[in-house]
């Protein structure tokens, strides 16, 4: 049952003359939750932004269902079924919660009713606050909104960039539970996290990025028990 959905091959991404991604390879199978871990500046966000077409790859390929995304403009990538909840949420602060959610379905003729019901079921708080300006939500609520907005595109592949960043622990737990439910709903998830422990508990497989290289890869359980990973990313607890 391991059908390939996304395959990143020898990807190189530069910012001007600085090489941020130095030739990485990884893959995501249909239905999986795959986690990309790594310290600050490792290149996680750069990778996701390149998959979504916001950055141009210097070389390499990003094959999604066989299509090379490096040659597709950002707005068309969403139509192919790849949606992203970006780092720092980036909700549209001066638009209402509802307008943000409807924008998520921009590529669809109509916002899908079942999806709408589903996200309000995942995050009932958004339903209560749907007339409120998104900028007035708490950080955690904004994260829920960013994920919901991405789901409205009815993606096959959901990219999540540090959904736990700067969010109260209770909400983090809630968001990770939601990711599990989203995955259970048949959406493939590529999860970038610094919260390695929580991410690996949730994920099927993981990759560890280190200054632009994939350093370690494997099953999530193995990574959780890997001494190198434990030392670098999990602290000494457990």
């Amino acid at each position, binding site marked *: 049952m391991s059908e390939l959905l996304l395959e990143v091959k020898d990807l190189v991404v530069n910012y001007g003359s600085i090489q941020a991604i130095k030739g990485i390879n990884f893959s995501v199978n249909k239905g999986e939750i795959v986690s990309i871990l790594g310290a600050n500046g490792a290149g996680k966000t750069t990778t996701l932004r390149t998959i979504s077409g916001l950055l141009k790859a210097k070389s390499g390929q990003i094959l999604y269902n066989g299509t090379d995304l490096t040659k597709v403009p*950002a707005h068309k990538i969403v139509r192919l079924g790849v949606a992203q909840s*970006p780092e720092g949420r980036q909700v549209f*602060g001066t638009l209402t919660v509802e307008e943000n959610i409807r*924008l*998520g379905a921009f590529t669809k003729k109509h916002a899908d009713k079942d999806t709408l019901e589903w996200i309000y079921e995942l995050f009932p708080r958004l339903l209560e606050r749907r007339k409120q300006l998104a900028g007035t939500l708490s950080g955690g609520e904004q994260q829920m909104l960013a994920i919901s907005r991405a789901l409205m*595109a009815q993606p096959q592949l959901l990219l999540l960039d540090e959904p736990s960043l700067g969010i109260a622990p209770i909400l983090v737990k809630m968001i990770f539970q939601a990711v599990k439910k989203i995955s259970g709903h048949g959406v493939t998830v590529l999860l970038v996290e610094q919260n390695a422990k929580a991410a690996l508990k949730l994920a099927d497989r993981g990759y560890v990025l280190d200054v632009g290289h994939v350093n370690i890869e494997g099953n999530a359980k193995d990574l959780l028990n890997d001494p190198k990973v434990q030392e670098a990313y999990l602290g000494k607890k457990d």
Partner: protein
Amino acid sequence: MDIFLQQVVNGLTIGSIYALVALGYTMVYGVMKLINFAHGDMVALSAYIGLVLYTQLAGLGFIPQPLTVVLVFLITALVIAIFGVLLERIAYRPLRTAPRLSAVVSALGASMMIQNGIMLVWGPNILIFPADILPAISWNVAGVTITFIQAAMIIITILLMISLTLFINYTKMGTAIRASAINQDAAKLMGINVNLVIMIIFVIGSILGAVGGLFIGMYYRGITFNLGWVYGLNAFIAAILGGIGNIPGSMIGGYLLGLFTALIAGYVSSAWAEAFTFILLILILIVRPTGILGERVAEKV
């Protein structure tokens, strides 16, 4: 009291022009954070194109006058919209990721090119719009005179502004425009084609500017190649007064500036209007640096 009401009517008329032109500056600024200095010159160009079209169409002799006027508006708006799209393609798109200053220089260059182009084609002397384009009707209400063209300008402008407001606030593309103004990368992640959004912005801004340019020609009648700088500057000030980037702000700013200029002209002297305009601008910016409606909600980080 009569002077006051009369100047209010005059102010609303001039304010309509300012508001229409200001919207072009504000919409482009909102999405691209760029001051399109060439916008005023597009307004001037529309007056010239309108005059040529009117002369040609009226010369044919068989088109009824009202239809001629409508055709002049439609064709001029279309031509200026095409120019607006070309302007963006040629002068701004190649510099989208360049430092801000490059785009400013390009905008100034485009402005001078259009202005000089107008002078090359139509000469440096004043051209006069015919007086009989619109019916010479006027109404006298309680000692205040409203001419046909004043009424037409105010009503058309208000209808255009209502349509724009409905479009921006209640349609999918309108929401996409607002989203692109807030965060272009996030807008792309929604599947929004930001290039298309920018094109639409230039089309809308140019159409409103074209209507403004035709109003200038029909109302003041004398047009010169540099009228874009004169009216453009005032409209730009109106946009800043209202909060640049903010659409209702530009509408309010336009009418406020129109009323203010008219009242200064009525009670002080029109020679002083410009000086007072700058005093008003400075005062408002001291009290509200973001303009009247600029940035209501700060985004949480």
